[in-house]
């Protein structure tokens, strides 16, 4: 326990700012998860590993001498096809089945991804240098690395593009129709198989963007995927499926929570507190729902 943050309230500003900026990134990953959960009724445990893979794509570009910021364009394109391929290979076989099957199957995929990344990129932590500067306020007490601002801005941009695409394009409408009622959409001539593949591809592409941003703002490591999965899962549960503003807000909320937990409980409990929060949210939700059920009775 450490209460420095209360002794120096200016640090709260820092924590809140950091939390909001990182939360936007979480929200982007969560939006991908909400999309494929809503459309295909699948929980993807490999979500976090897709993110990390996307990060490694940006990192490889950095190694090749290209500025890693271009990763936010290249990585989603590659990841879209990875997602598409993954759908054709495995996911299409679990779409209409028990949710638990999808959890376990994607868990298997996550293990394979982790190991392959371990073989290709090594188990060491790597970073992609963006070379972006830092803005300082209040006599260097509060710092805002430009890389985090960049990542938040790109996340917002991608979210907006995606929303417009979902509203306007033909595929976007097909995806939304399938989410509402897959059978009816099929009857009306929507190729649901293609819609599913595209949805999973878009989800993977969003993970790719997020991964490239993480490569610039944080560090990459083959085994850090799961916390990202859990965070996005949590955000989706709180926000509900297909509610983008709520996803954004709960993403930021989670980010701020984490930063404060980090300062107060200590960094060693950060991941633990995220997982504990997940349990608490689920339990809270269960009691809320059961009250509703009694009320309905």
């Amino acid at each position, binding site marked *: 326990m450490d209460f420095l943050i209360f002794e120096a309230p200016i640090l709260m500003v820092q924590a809140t700012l950091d939390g909001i900026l990182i939360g936007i990134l979480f929200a982007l990953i969560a939006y991908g998860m909400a999309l494929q959960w809503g459309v295909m009724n699948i929980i993807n445990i490999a979500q976090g590993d897709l993110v990390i893979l996307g990060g490694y794509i940006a990192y490889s570009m950095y190694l090749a001498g290209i500025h890693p910021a271009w990763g936010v364009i290249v990585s989603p394109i590659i990841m879209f096809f990875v997602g598409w391929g993954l759908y054709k290979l*495995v996911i299409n076989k679990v779409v209409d089945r028990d949710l638990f099957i999808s959890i376990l199957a994607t868990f*298997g995929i996550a293990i394979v991804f982790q*190991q392959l990344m371990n073989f290709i990129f090594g188990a060491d932590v790597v970073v992609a240098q963006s070379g972006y500067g830092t803005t300082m306020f209040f006599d260097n007490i509060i710092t805002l690395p430009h890389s985090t601002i960049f990542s938040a801005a790109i996340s917002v941009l991608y979210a907006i593009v995606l929303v417009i695409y979902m509203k306007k394009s033909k595929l976007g409408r097909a995806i939304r129709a399938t989410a509402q009622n897959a059978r009816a959409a099929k009857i009306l001539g929507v190729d649901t198989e293609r819609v599913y593949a595209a949805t999973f591809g878009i989800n993977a592409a969003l993970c790719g963007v997020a991964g490239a941003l993480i490569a610039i703002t944080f560090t990459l490591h083959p085994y850090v995927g799961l916390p990202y999965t859990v965070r996005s899962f949590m955000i989706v549960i709180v926000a509900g499926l297909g509610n983008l503003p709520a996803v954004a807000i709960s993403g930021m909320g989670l980010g701020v929570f984490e930063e404060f937990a980090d300062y107060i409980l200590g960094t060693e409990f950060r991941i633990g507190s995220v997982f504990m929060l997940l349990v608490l949210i689920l339990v809270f939700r269960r009691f809320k729902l059961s009250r509703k059920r009694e009320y309905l009775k």
Partner: protein
Amino acid sequence: MKQKDLILYVGLIILGLVAPFIFPGFKVQLTILCVLIVLAMTWNLQGGEMGYNSFGNILFYGLGMYLCASVQVGMFFPLAEWTESGGEKTFVHTTTQFFQGMGVGLLVAAIIPTIVAGLIGYAILGLRGHYFAICTLGLGIAAGEIAGGIEIIGAGQGFTTPPFPKDIVDPEARGEFFYYLSFIMLIATFVFVKWIYGSRFKLILNAIRDNEDKAEAMGIQTMKYKIVGWMVSAFFCGLAGGIMGGLIGYIDSTDVAFDGREMGVFMVLMAILGGKGTLWGPVIGATLFHFLKEGFWTLILGWQYVALGVLIVVIVIYFPEGLMGWLREKYPQRFGEVIDEKDRKAQVELK
């Protein structure tokens, strides 16, 4: 029929009793096999019979492990000094102290997780389906992360469990002790689970799995039975954890105790591989899995996790009913199912 069963059981028990002498080099693996079977069987009570797919049984396993070791140390020496600075100070258990501590430790390791399961059961078991699965996954991982920050049980330094008493000179003794301990636990678990399989309790669990709301409407207090079912699992998981802790000799929060990424998933996978919702399925699944895994180790150095991941995907996609399910489909008569040919044809046509 009855006689054949008897021969089978007696044969297996004799095999289990003499195994460490036939394969003296494999005692540790055999001990782990017993533990794996126990974990798979008790997971099967929820996942298979009750329909609550838990990733969180590892919580009880890890809890049992830490409790057993802490009690074994704490009964005779100050625990905080034992774990301080990565266990620099050396205290030596005498032979009697070691076994007394182990006995009491195992008892505590079984009882406390059972109580914990009872306490959190009401909150957690109210969740349905995948919410339950993810929640228990979170619970297991959170426990590991938090245990890794608690000083008195060694925190990140790990917890070295008391070494086997030096007075017992025979180097084989330690292996034999832990093997027979786990074998006794295995038999106890099997007998208990088999008794459950013949009882009304199992039918209630099945009713919950098949349709919880209807079961409730029939007047079954589902919550009560769900909690009891979970407590049974917790009891044996805690016991298994306690034995494993003593066997490995070194407890690390995330890699040994709350090892959700390995043990937590393995127990699910083993039950599914063998066939969930059957008595023998988890036993066969665990045995097969253990041998596959040991095979992977030597043959594909470094690639075993890729193979494991592929195995998981293949099993859950192509054999979600497991070996027993596959056999059941192939030879339904052997499972005492009578199939009406006409009915079957009609069903096929309907599809």
